[in-house]
């Protein structure tokens, strides 16, 4: 039995795992990306940053490490609250008889004014929400949008590129037309059009929940670059002798395309995928800024950055810093990881 096991080739994924471990940069990047994914899962399950929208601090609460920094905005707001005592209008108000009923019903409702703290771990935003919690919850939305959209775009681009490159002739001609149509429309215009269709057209009800619209917009507009690269690679590889050899042993066209050629062009796809993730996270920021991205009741790095723009003028830099640091670490680690993945998948670079 042992002898048989000896010659059974090492599982491709185990081999990949072993090689990733040897690559220190790759291992660290993998660790960071996995940490982010765990964080996102916890956030999605509600174990982490559940109360990101609760106003737990005073407006623009200082970060804990800058506790004694003067907070002009918070003291202004407090003064306003104290002053704002409602004058008695019982004598002139025609709705005065309802006052008692309202008072009774107000008493029935439980209204808790949370204890607003002066400082938060990484500061607060304009409403006194915890910036750290926002950044964690924002990672969930931004990364989900970026990664899912990039995977969708990669899937579309790879499939069409493989078909066009492998079969050539009319398949290629037809897909080239489709490609030309997509690339001849300015990208931002295409995004606006799709956003309009998906948000207010007959499909609007289907995608009411929010981030799926952004994912679809990005995937449908972003596959073209991948398509071109994959098509060129397939044109190059389909004539290679190892593909002819596979044909000679009777491998089907699908097997040649996706079992034989695909692993040989995977490095191109992986590098392009990592670029797409980075680009899509940035486009999500732009879309959210323009109001076409995630809905207002959600938070993403994009919405944080657009808020940060006005805050920065009055010297409240922590929201910008939080979003930027979260984004920079993830994007760098993700790029490095795909790079190591490329190396680890290449048998020549052991």
């Amino acid at each position, binding site marked *: 039995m042992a002898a048989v096991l000896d*010659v059974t080739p090492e599982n491709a994924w185990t081999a990949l795992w072993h090689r990733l471990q040897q690559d220190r940069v790759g291992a660290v990047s993998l660790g960071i990306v996995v940490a982010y994914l765990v964080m996102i899962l916890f956030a999605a399950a509600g174990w982490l940053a559940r109360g990101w929208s609760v106003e737990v601090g005073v407006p623009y609460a200082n970060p804990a490490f800058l506790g004694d920094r003067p907070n002009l905005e918070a003291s202004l707001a407090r003064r306003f609250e104290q002053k704002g005592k409602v004058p008695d209008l019982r004598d002139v108000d025609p709705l005065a008889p309802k006052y008692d009923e309202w008072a009774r019903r107000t008493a029935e409702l439980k209204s808790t004014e949370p204890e607003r703290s002066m400082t938060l771990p990484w500061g607060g935003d304009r409403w006194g929400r915890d910036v750290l919690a926002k950044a964690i919850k924002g990672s969930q939305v931004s990364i989900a949008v970026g990664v899912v959209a990039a995977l969708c775009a990669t899937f579309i681009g790879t499939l069409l590129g493989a078909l066009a490159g492998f079969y050539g002739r009319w398949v290629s001609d037809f897909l080239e037309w489709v490609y030309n149509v997509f690339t001849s429309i300015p990208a931002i215009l295409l995004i606006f059009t799709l956003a309009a269709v998906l948000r207010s057209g007959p499909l609007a009800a289907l995608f009411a929940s929010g981030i799926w619209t952004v994912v679809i917009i990005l995937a449908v507009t972003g596959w073209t670059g991948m398509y071109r690269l994959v098509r060129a690679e397939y044109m190059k590889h389909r004539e290679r*002798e*190892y593909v*002819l050899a*596979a044909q*000679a042993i009777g491998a089907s066209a699908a097997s040649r395309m996706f079992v034989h050629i695909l692993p*040989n062009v995977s490095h191109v796809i992986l590098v392009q995928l990592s670029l797409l993730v980075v680009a899509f996270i940035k486009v999500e920021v732009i879309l959210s800024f323009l109001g076409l991205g995630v809905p207002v009741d959600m938070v993403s790095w994009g919405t944080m950055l657009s808020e940060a723009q006005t805050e920065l003028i009055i010297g409240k830099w922590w929201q910008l810093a939080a979003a930027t640091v979260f984004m920079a670490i993830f994007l760098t680690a993700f790029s490095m990881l795909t790079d190591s993945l490329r190396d680890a*998948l290449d*048998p*020549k670079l052991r």
Partner: protein
Amino acid sequence: MSALVAVSDLRVSFVTRRTSVDAVRGVSFTVREDATLALVGESGSGKTVSAMSILRLLPENAVVHPASRIAYRGENLLEASAARLRALRGRDISAVFQEPMSSLNPVLTVGEQVAEVLRLHRRMTSRAAVERAAELLAEVGIPEPRARLRAYPHELSGGQQQRVMIAMAIANEPKLLIADEPTTALDVTVQRQVLELIARLRERHRMSVLFISHDLGLVGELADDVVVMRDGVVREAGPVERIFHAPQDPYTRALLACRPRLDARPRRLPVIDDFMRGRAAAIEPLARPPAGAPALQAKQLRKEFRLRTGFFASRALVAVSDVSFDVSRGRTVGLVGESGSGKTTVARLMLRLLEPTAGEARLDGTELTGLKAAELLPLRRRIQIVFQNPYASLNPRRNIGRTLVEPMRIHRLGASEAHRYERARELLQRVGLPADAMQRYPHEFSGGQRQRIAIARALAVEPEVLVCDEPVSALDVSVQATVLNLLLDLQESLGLAYVFISHDLAVVKYMSDEVLVMRAGEVVERGTPEAIFASPQHEYTRKLIAAIPRGYEGRYSESRA
């Protein structure tokens, strides 16, 4: 005669992040003035590294041992400054490389490239340089040199490209021309012309040539001195007569013997191992079975490719026309011809990797042409192919085990997966590779080993017919012999029918029972190998036979006299 370049105790290692490889381990040789020195060895023997050390054209990670010395007219080139080296390169010492297409800049015209060398080293005016470039092209035998000055490299044939490279190399009347396998990428008849050109230029310009080759037979025709290298050390060095008539080292003797001879057909070719271990090579003649019922038949095969010449217009390019042959089990049909003769197209037509325009290919009487993919699948099992380039025909991303098991899985051979792996191991053993090759990847093997793997893959489905498309052309002569012996062993034990394709007439003669000489898609001559060699009818066949390197006996200067 005095020494032009004296290399003494040259040691070069390549340092990578983890390891250091000693490529050249203490090599000494002397290039005499006005003479040709040949460095001969297999790939990986360090011959190219030794020669390129003279020009210091080595990869970044090469480290030359400080005790090494390369004296060019008394000046140690290993200590020369970068400026001094630039002055020497292209003027005193120039080089011609193996691949003419990649050695020429594809976006500059031939004239510009030749003129550049002249302008750099001689400060010629542009006009004078172009004038001189035309003379040089005429000297290296390019027809209509003036018109060709404006041609781009892709407009020239491989042989003409190599002539342009040579023109650039001799433009400044160098003292030493380093020719690194200058003819390996060329057709045999063109190889002959280029060799003659180099020999003629050497005599006329009284320069020295350092000729690098893996083929001792080729070297014997033009070298004055020969240095035989293996694994980074010199095995034997001496004048060419002594190397050919009284070789001292067993390795030299092996190199001399392993090329198929034209006058004998031993049962197996002698290989390096036989000589290194002092084993006697087989001398009994090769026994061939008589022709029986044809296993594979080609009937008037024709293939046209459509070239688009305009928006709607296209023109037919006839790659193969009217090729017919039969081959029965245990026998071999040889196809011989130069690049562009349609040999490979025939191979692909037989496998139905290409659709013939007309004619048919029959396997055991069943017509292959016109079958649907599903009907073809069971027949694919019975006819297999081995490709020319073992570096390209194995999928680099999968290990050998997967490569060998896949065909069995497709054709549902073997009871279980474990069974198939068991059989894959047997196949590896059969082609002479260890079982631990299963988990390794193609790049970890040498060219000869890869070709064995490709043969094992073809055998995995137990075929009856094997089409070998230049199976040994990319291999060193010494490795060639082992692969040819393996093919003969397999044919004897499994009764395979071979279609054997090569540009090397000597190899085809050794392997085949019937030879078809092809040129421009047509069969110009056919017959038994003995008959073709004894009395070649077609002029082209005679040219091919004349192009076979004959070693010291076929020396250029003597043959011209």
